């Protein structure tokens, strides 16, 4: 009884619960740069999870939105000297626009076709940014994104300090958590889950499936774009790899490792994936082998993921 009420309490106040965890998270990590990475990739996986975990659409092209978010923010800062508070929305909006175009084409297909089409279109985006060298720096990536201090209500915040940077980025993550939570508990959130469970029945109930899918796709792209935008500020460069196929794969791996269709899962998955990468690269350079093997083990034996399995286990007892 007590456990159930605790569980219900957590799921009712899921934003507060996740925020509380993320507030103390830097102390749980071996070093702070890793915590910042988990924050950014957790956000990225959360955007992906909105589409894959909740709407049931497996995209293999979400690197496009992470990368475009990064480039959007980077380009307006480097080439046009925009301040950060305009550059972040610029990245998010550009990623959303790419989301509209890619989504509009990709939702014409279903199931595995959708995965193949999103993968191919993301590769196309990769080539476009790779070729537009004068704007994006091409192979070398976009360099020279500077954000060292922030003037906030007369307060000088030094962002070169990793702790300050973590909490600065956390503000955006918490806002997104709140937003996603609202979306999921809205009627729209219920509709996307009916599409995941049974698309035909959902259409038969009178919902506009194509439009709902497109809206979910663009929301997901916008969140991944925000993650990319924050990543550009964090790294101060945009590597062209952020648009690569393997980066799309990272979102898939993190979301599944953490637990697809769970609210907290993406952050658990991002932390697990980045910790594996961090620990394994200290021992051997073949971390992809370990990451791939762990991922296959989860697909075969723990498809609910880490957080999903814990929730399932708690609810069952």
């Amino acid at each position, binding site marked *: 009884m007590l456990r159930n009420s605790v569980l219900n309490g957590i799921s009712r106040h899921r934003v507060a619960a996740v925020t509380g965890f993320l507030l103390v998270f830097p102390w749980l990590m071996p070093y702070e740069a890793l915590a910042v990475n988990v924050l950014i990739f957790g956000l990225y996986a959360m955007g992906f999870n909105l589409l894959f975990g909740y709407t049931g659409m*497996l995209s*293999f092209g979400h690197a496009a939105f992470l990368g475009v978010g990064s480039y959007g923010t980077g380009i307006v800062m480097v080439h046009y000297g925009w301040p950060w508070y305009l550059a972040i929305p610029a990245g998010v909006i550009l990623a959303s626009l790419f989301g509209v175009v890619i989504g509009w*084409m990709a939702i*014409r*297909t*279903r*199931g*595995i*076709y959708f*995965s*193949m*089409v999103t*993968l*191919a*279109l993301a*590769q*196309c985006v990769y*080539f*476009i940014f*790779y*070729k537009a060298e004068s704007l994006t720096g091409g192979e070398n990536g976009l360099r020279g994104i500077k954000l060292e201090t922030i003037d906030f209500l007369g307060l000088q915040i030094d962002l070169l300090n990793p702790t300050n940077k973590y909490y600065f980025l956390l503000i955006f993550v918490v806002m997104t958590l709140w937003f996603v939570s609202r979306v999921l508990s809205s009627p729209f959130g219920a509709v996307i889950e009916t599409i995941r469970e049974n*698309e*035909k029945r959902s259409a038969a109930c009178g919902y506009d499936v194509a439009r709902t899918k497109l809206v979910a796709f663009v929301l997901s792209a916008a969140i991944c774009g925000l993650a990319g935008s924050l990543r550009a500020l964090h790294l101060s460069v945009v590597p062209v790899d952020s648009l690569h*196929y*393997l980066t799309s*794969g990272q979102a*898939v*791996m993190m979301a*599944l490792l953490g637990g697809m269709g769970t609210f907290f899962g993406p952050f658990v998955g991002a932390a697990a994936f980045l910790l594996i990468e961090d620990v394994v690269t200290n021992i051997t350079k*073949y971390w*992809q*082998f370990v*990451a*791939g*093997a762990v*991922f*296959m083990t989860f*697909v*075969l034996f723990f*498809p609910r993921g880490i957080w999903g399995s814990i929730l399932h286990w708690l609810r069952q007892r």
Partner: protein
Amino acid sequence: MFDLKLLILQMVTGVALGSVFVLLSIGLSLIFGMLTVVNFAHGAYFMVGAYVGVYALGVTGNFWLSLVIVPLAVGALGLLTERFLVRPLYGRGIDYPLLLTFGLSYVMMDLVRMVFGSDGQPIGTPPGLGGAVDIGVGNFPVYRLFLIVATAIIVAALWLFIEKTRFGLIIRAGARDPEIVRVLGIDVSKAWLLVFGLGTAIAGLSGILAAPIRAVTPEMGIPVLIEAFVVTVVGGMGSLPGAIVAGLLVGIVYSLSSLYVPDFADTSIFVLMALVLLVRPQGLFGRAGLMS
């Protein structure tokens, strides 16, 4: 200045390039048509095929022998994959085999790096297939002609196998309705196993065939996988004629655009795919409704 000879020569180059796409997407289509599994490790089998081929070539010194060894070795790997990794996932939703093979491609890439190192492997044009011949519109590399002929032979053999043999009959029936085939007393899971092995063997074979015209590196399977997906979307999943027509079409579009608009060569095949998606989402030869 418009040069017709150059155009035709470039189109033949495109057909040679497209031959590799044809082989790859036939393997993908074969596996999907029967098992409804999208093999995300298909590019990795292609890459392993190239590496095994280069290794066999180094040991035996005979290119033709390595063309026999590669499909056997890579096909055996495919059989093991289906039996122990993909089979437990049947009936658990279409995404799971896709996710599993995606993870497998990571593992295979790093395994190849462990054995052969991260650098590329050199492979010259096989002896007897070097040089160029005049094909009427200009000189054309012999090896690329060989690629076209080899692909035609493999495709013809596959077509005879599927249309004219008893096992091919089981494949065609199983792709349409596995339930009925099972009721008729045929072990469908054995057919699935063999089809997965066959598809990966063709992927490996196309790897060694393409090795002399592509760089052999552990990552060579990634662009190839994406190109094979483009071909599959254009041609229609599960359709053999679709794979052939779309493979050649994508090859020709790529080589023509790299001649006339080199800056857009990489993106041209995606534009083609986008156009097909807008006009015919199920692909040129795809059946409507197969996707759902």
